[in-house]
């Protein structure tokens, strides 16, 4: 053992304490005299520590509520023995819902051969009558409209939180309808303009998300959408504290003044951002003559800062900012 480097698996298992006492002694004896293996061990230990330091991603309160509604609705369906094709309740997952509908549509198509008009009506009624469970997307929308603050524990939750807002979904759906061809599978036809090679990966990710939301394109997006204006604050009024409609509108105006180019307000929410109350304000940067939005810009700001600061001082006070292509 002393003359032979330990296998990489052995070093890794040694770091996890998953070696026998004999192996452990051999590895330690070897490491004491081998700089190369010592370096590998150190690097693997660092890689492991760095990964652990990423931490455990938590669900937001909205995601938990939506999941609970969808699942517990589904259990009622399951208990009644009325599962859909393949034993899966129709309308349970955002993407599975589409699959379920397709199957029902095929069934409806056969019915049309026999009874065209009745079959068509039946096919349309199936999603509402079969599952009884909400899609995740459907379940999410009412949660967004509640007065319960959104919780964002880390910046990597911002994008998905923003995309889950019904106003934003409405804006993106409208944007896609106005500016692009009919939705196609993202891998073949990304819906995003790629500005340079370095952004391809991020663009493809965004295209994928756009595809996800296109699945729920038939839903009511929430009304405010690209229209912006006061409608953006439909869910923001919670009263009795700094997060009023008026304060939100004023804050949105102050933030917009710090940004180049025209922006349309899409949504504003009271959120809990890393443990502190804050505004989450979402804008769309108009795409120009093609319609829709070229960019979604999101800002997280303390309401006190928003009320007391302006210009560059306000910009420096942003708790977080995030932009992405719709």
């Amino acid at each position: 053992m002393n003359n032979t480097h330990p296998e990489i698996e052995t070093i890794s298992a040694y770091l996890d304490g998953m070696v026998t006492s004999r192996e452990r002694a051999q590895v330690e004896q070897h490491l004491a005299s081998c700089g190369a293996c010592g370096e590998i061990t150190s690097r693997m230990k660092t890689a492991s520590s760095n990964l652990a330091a990423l931490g455990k991603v938590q669900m937001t309160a909205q995601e938990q509520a939506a999941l609970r509604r969808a699942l517990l609705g589904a259990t009622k369906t399951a208990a009644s023995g009325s599962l859909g094709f393949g034993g899966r309740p129709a309308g349970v997952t955002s993407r599975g819902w589409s699959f379920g509908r397709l199957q029902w549509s095929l069934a409806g198509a056969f019915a049309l051969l026999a009874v065209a008009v009745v079959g068509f009506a039946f096919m349309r009624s199936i999603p509402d009558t079969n599952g009884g469970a909400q899609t995740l997307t459907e379940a999410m929308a009412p949660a967004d409209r509640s007065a319960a603050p959104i919780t964002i524990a880390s910046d990597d939750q911002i994008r998905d939180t923003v995309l889950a807002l019904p106003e934003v979904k409405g804006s993106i759906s409208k944007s896609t309808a106005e500016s692009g061809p009919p939705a196609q599978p993202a891998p073949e036809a990304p819906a995003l303009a790629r500005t340079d090679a370095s952004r391809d990966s991020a663009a493809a990710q965004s295209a994928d998300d756009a595809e996800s939301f296109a699945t729920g394109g038939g839903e009511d997006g929430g009304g405010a959408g690209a229209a912006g204006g006061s409608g953006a604050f439909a869910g923001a009024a919670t009263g009795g504290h700094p997060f009023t409609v008026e304060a939100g509108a004023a804050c949105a105006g102050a933030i917009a003044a710090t940004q180049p180019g025209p922006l349309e307000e899409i949504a504003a929410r009271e959120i809990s951002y890393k443990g502190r109350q804050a505004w989450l304000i979402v804008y769309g940067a108009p795409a120009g003559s093609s319609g829709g939005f070229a960019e979604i810009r999101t800002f997280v700001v303390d309401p006190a800062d928003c009320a007391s600061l302006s210009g560059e001082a306000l910009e420096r006070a942003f708790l977080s900012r995030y932009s992405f292509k719709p």
Partner: protein
Amino acid sequence: MRDPDLEAQTDELLVAAFVESKDERALEVLLARHESRVFGIAYRILGNRADALDATQDVFLTVFRKAGSFRGQAAFTTWLYRLTTNACHDIGRRKARTPLPMETLPNPPGAGSGEMDTRLGVEQALRALPQDQRVAIVMRDLYDLDYEQIAAATGVPLGTVKSRIARARRALAGIMDDSRGMEPRSGGSRLRKQR
């Protein structure tokens, strides 16, 4: 309303309570107890919240539907992790796409700091791993599962788990070194005999 009596029950007894008496409160307790863990594992494996949410939903739907087939011969969490692995595998296969680098914040607080760069580098390196290695290393280093639990969750022998974790760690170290301009190590999984 949470039921303290149910909250005190083991996972296995909660499953039994649901199977025997169709007590949905038992399912709610199971959900509350495990949803974040399932979601977190799925997020790190799949790389985005939407897919992780779908995977979490698939996992608990299966739990609810197939609770009757759970015999209690293994721990409930073993079954849960197996379902999580399967759900992630199914979603990954359905989407048939390569894991993508994490979208980056244009001006995140702390951007340019060593800590943030390291974090972004680790996340990108993690997503570049083959899924079998990513599953193993996420379960081990982020969620502290032991090798036996990972083997049970993934349905592979212990030696395979050991190998996947080792290769994932070496790849993570190598990718991060690349990002710092250092040469990655060459060679296979075994080290050469010392001269």
